[in-house]
């Protein structure tokens, strides 16, 4: 009986495989994926560029003739650009030795350190900004734990300190990923030629490492240009009125919705100004990323000449150890401790007053909404991102290369500019009736789409397409081949992408605020608590719950991957 059932089930699955392997089915499906990507992911994220060009006369009238608007934009851009460039450079300087040590050395706390590096990724940036401000900043309104540094009053230094925590984990991760691919015998070969360890690393590994450096630079630049929620809570906690590009977008958008006047700016100029600023932010982000890629691809070695005796001294004895201590010191003092300082605050600052005045209903709603949005966005992205990745990986024509380059655009576009752009797109169209929740979900889909595609592509590059061909010669239909050969290999890459997409969505503030200021997701709730209600305790608690959700996912993934690898 049971066997008969099985037989029927098998026949059904074969019939399904036959159906889904039909040429027409495939073509239709791929066209749908393309349309989805271009029309619903890519186009909305840069829609604001077109809008600015089309409505340039209006912008010219209201924005470019108003010196107050201009000076606010210039000041905000100054902070955004200078911080992101400086942070990227410092990240690379300290990230290289750490990545090196993590890949090439064995030491006792290696796996612990590996998880610690990823920890800041699990903290929603809104909470991260608050945590960093507590540790480094002078906080007039918040009582801080005794061992806080309590030193910084100005926006620029604390913005830099904050962005170390958001970008450094990405930099180290992308550097280690590439470094693991580089054959270690090349360095050994260099050393048999008489090169010291430092010389070998500098002349052999580093030049081959360009793609890793490029990825690290892109991630760091994009991330630091993009962050909104963290910057808002950071600056609110130290009571600074400074604006960066992304927070200014949020502020203006909010002022427009609330119909609250901004000093020096006419109410009618708010929308064109915001659109203009978002367009500039997008252009700046794309330009910086392009320049970073060019530099990484074309830069020659910084020093052609070798200084044997000097490079000996930095390779031997105490020097490498000192270098490691400095690099890991940076990681601990500037990244890990400030990220987790929130926990110290929670333990010390729990007050009953904060407990009783809290809006628990909103608290629950915001967390529910965050998980809902992140889940829908992630599911949609997995269903549509995986076929896209397969198409890019397996059809190597010019079209797929263009697609490959375009997939990253939603990642590079600063998230509040993305949110604003997606909002404009859906309000301007009149075909579909839409609501605010739909806006938020679409913005999150666009923002996290690259994670799934990139990760799946990474997994696919591990799988020799010859295996798929072998399966096909043995009579497997394309869909069966995918299910039985391809999927088991790329499964973990897809899950990893899904988790990155989910955690990114859970932590996102800027896009949500810009697309719909009235939608309260948990990060927005945190921002409001800190900025308006001054209920720091509840903000910290909400952050902790989000950390818990994200890290639970990350650690489950790590455990299941390592279990699968042992098999």
């Amino acid at each position: 009986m049971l066997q008969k059932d099985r037989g029927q089930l098998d026949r059904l699955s074969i019939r399904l495989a036959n159906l889904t392997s039909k040429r027409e089915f495939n073509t239709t499906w791929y066209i749908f994926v393309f349309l989805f990507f271009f029309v619903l992911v890519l186009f909305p994220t840069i829609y604001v560029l077109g809008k600015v060009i089309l409505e340039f006369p209006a912008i010219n009238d209201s924005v470019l003739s108003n010196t107050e608007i201009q000076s606010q934009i210039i000041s905000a851009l100054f902070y955004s650009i200078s911080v992101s460039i400086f942070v990227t450079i410092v990240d690379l300087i300290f990230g290289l030795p750490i990545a090196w040590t993590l890949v090439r050395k064995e030491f006792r706390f290696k796996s612990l350190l590996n998880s610690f590096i990823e920890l800041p990724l699990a903290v929603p940036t809104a909470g991260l900004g608050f945590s960093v401000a507590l540790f480094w900043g002078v906080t007039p309104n918040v009582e801080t734990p005794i061992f806080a540094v309590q030193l910084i009053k100005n926006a620029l230094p604390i913005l830099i300190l904050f962005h170390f925590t958001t970008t450094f984990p990405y930099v180290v991760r992308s550097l280690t990923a590439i470094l693991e691919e580089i054959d270690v015998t090349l360095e050994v070969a260099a050393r048999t030629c008489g090169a010291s360890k430092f010389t070998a690393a500098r002349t052999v590994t580093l030049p081959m490492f360009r793609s890793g450096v490029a990825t690290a630079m892109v991630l760091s630049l994009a991330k630091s240009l993009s962050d909104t929620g963290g910057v808002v809570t950071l600056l609110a906690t130290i009571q600074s009125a400074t604006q960066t590009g992304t927070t200014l977008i949020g502020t203006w958008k909010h002022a427009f919705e609330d119909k609250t006047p901004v000093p020096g700016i006419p109410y009618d100029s708010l929308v064109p100004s915001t659109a203009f600023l978002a367009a500039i932010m997008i252009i700046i982000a794309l330009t910086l990323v392009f320049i970073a890629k060019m530099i990484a691809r074309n830069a020659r070695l910084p020093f052609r000449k070798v200084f044997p005796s000097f490079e000996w001294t930095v390779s031997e004895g105490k020097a490498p150890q000192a270098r490691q201590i400095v690099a890991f010191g940076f990681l601990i003092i500037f990244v890990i401790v400030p990220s987790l300082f929130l926990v110290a605050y929670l333990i010390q600052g729990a007050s009953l007053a904060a407990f009783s005045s809290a809006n628990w209903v909103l608290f629950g709603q915001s967390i529910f909404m965050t998980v809902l949005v992140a889940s829908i966005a992630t599911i949609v992205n997995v269903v549509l991102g995986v076929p896209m990745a397969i198409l890019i990986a397996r059809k190597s024509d010019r079209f797929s290369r263009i697609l490959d380059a375009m997939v990253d655009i939603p990642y590079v576009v600063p998230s509040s500019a993305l949110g604003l752009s997606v909002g404009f797109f859906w309000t301007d169209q009149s075909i579909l009736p839409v609501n605010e929740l739909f806006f938020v979900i679409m913005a999150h889909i666009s923002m996290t789409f690259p994670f799934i595609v990139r990760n799946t592509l990474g997994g696919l590059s591990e799988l020799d397409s010859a295996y798929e061909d072998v399966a096909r010669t043995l009579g497997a239909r394309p869909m069966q081949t995918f299910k039985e050969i391809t999927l088991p290999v790329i499964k973990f890459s897809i899950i990893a992408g899904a988790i990155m997409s989910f955690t990114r969505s859970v932590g996102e503030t800027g896009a949500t605020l810009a697309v719909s200021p009235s939608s309260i997701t948990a990060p927005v709730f945190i921002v409001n608590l800190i900025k308006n209600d001054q209920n720091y305790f509840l903000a910290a608690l909400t952050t902790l719950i989000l950390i818990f959700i994200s890290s639970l996912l990350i650690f489950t993934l790590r455990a299941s991957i390592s279990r699968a690898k042992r098999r």
Partner: protein
Amino acid sequence: MPTVTLRNIGKKFGRVVALTGIDLEIKDAEYLAILGPSGCGKTTLINCITGIVDISEGKIEIDGKSVEGIPIEKRDFAMVFQNIALFPHMTVSENISYAPYVNDIPHVELKKIESEMLKLVDLLEQKDLYPRELSGGAQQKTAVARALATREKLLILDEPISALDYKVRVTLRYAIRKLVKDLGLTAIHITHDQEEAMSVADRIVILRAGEIVEIGTPQQLYSSPQTLFTMNFVGESNFLEGVVTEVVSDHEVHVSFRNNQSLGLKNGDPHFEEGESIVVAFRPENAFISKKSIGNSLIGEITGKQFIGGYIRYTISLRTEDEIILDSRLDIEPHGNIFIQLNPQEARVFRAPTYGLKKVLTLE
């Protein structure tokens, strides 16, 4: 001048013993091959000499000086790697001049060394190409030139040509040996290919499961191996298990096999006693086949016949229930009984191994 002395080297990876009790003396200007099946510890041994891994016990001396604690780059040797390990982002010239470059040799001299090396390995025309644009043979020549440009007198070659095509391999191994001899270098050459070891080396070390089995010149190892393992691993051999029935003199024994087959054989060193189990080993070319009945021979039938080129290879089923291979220039009809006589100078008699013949002959 470079000599290398290994005294009682041992290496463990955790609980796994990779090498034990390695004693070896490599003379100046000697071409030494280290030969063994894969997993025997060849590469580990080389990694110990070069300093890529630390030894667990024993002592290594290069030129009479202990190398303990000296990092790779300060040990005086040049190395060619199994996976070639050319720097992919540098041209042939840049790869070759890497050693002078990292030692900050003045530019004029660097260029001199570079062109000298290019000429030496005959790559002048390809000097501006990148490694991926070269054939396998040219890549390995570049790797050899890069190693030689260090001007070290000790050259270590870790399976330098095993990944290449057969013809290229044959040409390159002669070229490498000639270079080493012309430049008066000391060379340590690792390989799992016995033919390669025989054709390049002055002396061969046979390694098995982390221990030295035997050391000797190619000729010694082929003609008068001291162990069954060497007999089997170097060249091809037939093995017949039997029992000593009579000790005629110090150098002559009578041996009987299954089904009442027997032979009188000369033997060298080990002195056998009556009733002792032995193994008779001989190379395929060291036996004579006859259609007619001859004395002191084994009876068998031809079951396979293969034309090789200069000779014919016969597969023969002996009445002793053994199967052997024999090479002969004679063209013999494969019907009926044949008689096989062993060349008394070349057939070797070994004491039967305690744990069985199979166990001794396995490569791992």
